[in-house]
């Protein structure tokens, strides 16, 4: 019976361990943050008393067109999200609320795309993008992700849970099919949209391989690709400057995350649970 009550000493040890792991987990980030504000030799020698400096940020900032990269990332994420919202809403609605023959077969085909990842199809997707004239464009980076099977699935699940009475009431009022979708289903799915948007933004802000392949000029590269080029060993940039550049590129999303932490976590939860 006494074992049922948790022993305080063991609990303390466990809490200590949990906090220790937490510190360990953010230590790479903390170290980079610290190194970014110190000159390279101090960062390398781990001199905790060394003077703070902004020189690394100045050097990093001057070393690459960060503003262009930032703008590209921002436009890319917006473009992908806009495309995804429109396409997944329409398709999700069709799968959830319109009855027609062949629907289940098509739905299975769509689900297949959960496993045929755009990442795996880089070779042929590159040729498709080339043929459509989309190489080195933001649309070319975003297009393969727009008809997201995951998003379609998510929207279908959400729309299915909308009470049928609301739908019928709107139809009686004389709403067209798209009118019903816009007036009844879209407002009802607002939390799902928010969740999906956050997941999509963080995924595409961080995406690297496909943007690397499709882009070949500074004018279209997103931040991740820009950072990888800036930090490439051939460029011989020192560790403190790379830290500064890394902090700069990671900052927007990390700050966004820290501010909207609760929504972020809820978003990932909502998106993950079927």
């Amino acid at each position, binding site marked *: 019976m006494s074992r049922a009550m948790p022993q305080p000493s063991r609990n303390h040890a466990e809490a200590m361990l949990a906090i220790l792991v937490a510190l360990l987990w953010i230590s790479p980030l903390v170290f980079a943050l610290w190194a970014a504000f110190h000159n390279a030799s101090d960062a390398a020698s781990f001199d905790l008393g060394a003077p703070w400096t902004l020189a690394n940020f100045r050097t990093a900032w001057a070393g690459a067109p960060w503003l262009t990269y930032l703008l590209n990332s921002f436009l890319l994420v917006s473009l992908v999200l806009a495309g995804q919202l429109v396409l997944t809403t*329409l398709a999700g609605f069709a799968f959830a609320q319109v009855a027609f023959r062949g629907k289940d077969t098509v739905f299975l085909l769509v689900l297949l795309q959960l496993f045929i990842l755009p990442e795996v199809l880089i070779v042929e997707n590159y040729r498709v993008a080339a043929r459509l004239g989309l190489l080195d464009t933001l649309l070319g980076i975003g297009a393969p992700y727009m008809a997201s099977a995951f998003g379609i699935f998510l929207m279908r699940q959400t729309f299915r849970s909308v009470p049928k009475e609301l739908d019928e009431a709107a139809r009686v009022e004389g709403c067209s099919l798209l009118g019903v979708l816009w007036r009844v289903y879209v407002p009802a799915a607002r939390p799902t949209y928010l969740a999906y948007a956050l997941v999509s933004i963080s995924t595409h802000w*961080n995406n690297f391989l496909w943007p690397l392949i499709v882009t070949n000029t500074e004018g279209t590269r997103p931040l991740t690709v820009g950072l990888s080029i800036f930090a490439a060993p051939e460029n011989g940039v020192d*560790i403190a400057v790379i830290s500064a550049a890394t902090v700069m590129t*990671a900052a927007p999303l990390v700050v966004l995350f820290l501010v909207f932490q609760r929504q972020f976590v809820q978003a990932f939860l909502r998106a993950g649970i079927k």
Partner: protein
Amino acid sequence: MADAFTLQRRRRAIHGWLLLAPSLVMLTAFAFYPSAATLWASLFSRGTRRRPAEFIGLENYGRLFDDPTFWLVATNNLLYAGVTIPLSIALALVMALWADARIPARSFVRTAYFTPTVLPMIAAANLWLFFYTPGFGVLDRIGGLFGAASVNWLGQPETALWAVSAVTVWKEAGFFMIFYLAALQTIPPDLREAAAIEGAGRWTYTRRVVLPLLMPTTLFILVNAMINSVKLIDHLFILTRGGPSDASKLILYYVWENAFAFFDRPAAAAMTVLVLAGLGTLAALQFLVIDRRTHYR
């Protein structure tokens, strides 16, 4: 009357297909057609300016199976999956149990675990570079305090793959934790009380009650982790570029290299087909086994 009914059904079908059309067009262009084209390309020889590509059947696959690098890369990927999947899932579970327990600084702990998830893999790789760099990297410094010799974690074949795997686990564990955390919160608290009345200790309660209830979540995470073990290769571009001597090269990186560095499209296509076959098997398993189980929930 029947006519009006047929008409209405036909109209519904047209609406349905119209709503699906934009998605189907995009899926065809960037998923279905490329998949078929990959399969097709894997059956042709590498065309040169003088000699156009010609149909050679399964020769590309034969060439691939004769390529020792392919086997090395496939083995690497299996090891990578074998290490990162169980480790990140186990860590995620422990983290979720901690983040759900009544401990001090809980929200800090939660945030700390989750933060790596919002970092780009490229940025994460840069952060870890400082840990691994021989001489002045953090790991070497800590090792130095205990008198250990300097280790070039990323530069030697024995450690490179493990060093790369560590970054993946670091990045993934916090992400998977979130799903466990959500599942933990759906477990009714009376179960814990009932277990306590029965005299079950915390360990028994976790093992006999919590873990079985988390099973559907574990399966869901498992599928995601398997997909990630194919997909997550961004950090290779920063940390090792597959080296030294291919010791940390993974399949998708090798596909990229074949296609965009060696310009050997047939080899890249054949490898992609094998990856797709693997993922397809996984999909079939998910639909047949896992979905059925979660439905009964």
